[in-house]
């Protein structure tokens, strides 16, 4: 099958590669572009481990063709930290023990990142509703909620400060 030229912005950088139309975004990110931070869990659109930001919305990159990202702005977990400094969401997961094995964490953090842009001051119920597309086999979710709350406070105080 012929490969197609694909160009998009990844974590603020312009990237290009050749892909088959049937390749999924998750595979191109990991295998062609070497960005292995985004994980593959179920590959059936259920677990959310593959969550990335696509033009300002959270999506499951196992259920989008790479060619659909043509000209788009994609952000993955590798784009969270800036100048060696952790993003408040990452800091929250560290401080509040929001992970155990860490497999779900890149997807959790990318969803939390976008959720806090959509709703900077969510209630606990809103966090649970907003994070419902991400599964975790380890933590029981309590500390994930606390991590998101930590990040919300930190982002709010940065805005006010």
């Amino acid at each position: 099958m012929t490969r197609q030229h694909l160009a998009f912005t990844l974590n603020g950088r312009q990237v290009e590669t050749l892909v088959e139309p049937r390749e999924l975004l998750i595979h191109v990110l990991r295998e062609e572009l070497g960005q292995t931070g985004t994980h593959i869990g179920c590959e059936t659109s259920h677990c959310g481990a593959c969550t990335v930001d696509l033009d300002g919305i959270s999506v499951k990159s196992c259920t989008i063709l790479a060619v659909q990202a043509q000209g788009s702005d994609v952000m993955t977990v590798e784009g969270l930290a800036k100048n060696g400094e952790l993003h408040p969401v990452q800091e929250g997961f560290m401080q509040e023990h929001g992970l155990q094995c860490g497999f779900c964490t890149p997807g959790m953090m990318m969803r939390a990142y976008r959720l806090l842009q959509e709703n900077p001051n969510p209630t606990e119920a809103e966090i649970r509703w907003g994070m419902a597309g991400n599964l975790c086999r380890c933590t029981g979710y309590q500390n994930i909620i606390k991590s998101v709350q930590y990040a919300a406070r930190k982002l709010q105080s940065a805005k006010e400060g």
Partner: protein
Amino acid sequence: MIPGHFAYHAPASVEEVITLLGQYGDEASVLAGGHSLLPMMKLRFAEPAHLIDINRIPVLRGIRETQGVIHIGAMTTESELIASALLNEKCPLIPEAARVIADPQVRNRGTLGGDVANGDPSNDHPAVMMALDALLVLRGPRGERVVSANGFYQGTYLTQREADELLIEIRIPTPPPGTGQAYCKLKRKTGDYATAAAAVVLQLDGTRCRKAGIALTNVAPTPLRADAAERVLEGKVIDEDLIEQAAVQAMAICDPAEDLRGDAEYRTHMAGEMTRRAIRLALQRVQGKSP
């Protein structure tokens, strides 16, 4: 898990889509949100030779109201339905159903048109569209036609849409003041399809029910319109006794498959219970009290 080989097309206009559909017909599939189609392609249940991606056509998106009709573009996402001030005010049944579909990421991609066109009885919007008497606008090489959501579903994955037709928009007569609506869905967890669900639309004339729309999700090979249940309520002041009779009529038409959600008897029973709850809730919403 990756799909089989296909040629990818990303047309920029509806006209181009129609041309491609005319050219490839049943060799082609339209790619909307992709959250039913891509999983099917990964499993090789679907192997289209041509994939026509309609995500780059802005006219297929959006919600507006003109002359008592709400128009929703086929590519409007579940998240957009939930956020719509127009729908929350004038037709809250649609955002209510969208909120119990899948999860935030899936709802960011999944579209109303895809959910309606898919033809899977477990999709939630078809019953909602039937209860609301929605019209579906289809366009193909032979022109445009408008069909009712009632009658559109003929079997599992079998609809009135021809292989070369594109669903353009969904039209819903704006429910008049005095209408109560509710969608009640039983599911085991976030991201699960319905064990059973009921969509109810009640138009009241004072205390009397002038018109009822009741439809059921995932309890037969197609979504079901529960006409006999509607007739129990129409022309009457709805009380618990009538609600029970309507639920019995709704259960009488169920023919669910046994699956991990339960056996046929349980799922039929749950369809009855969802019907009772949705009627009570719709009444409560329009009258501010339960019967």
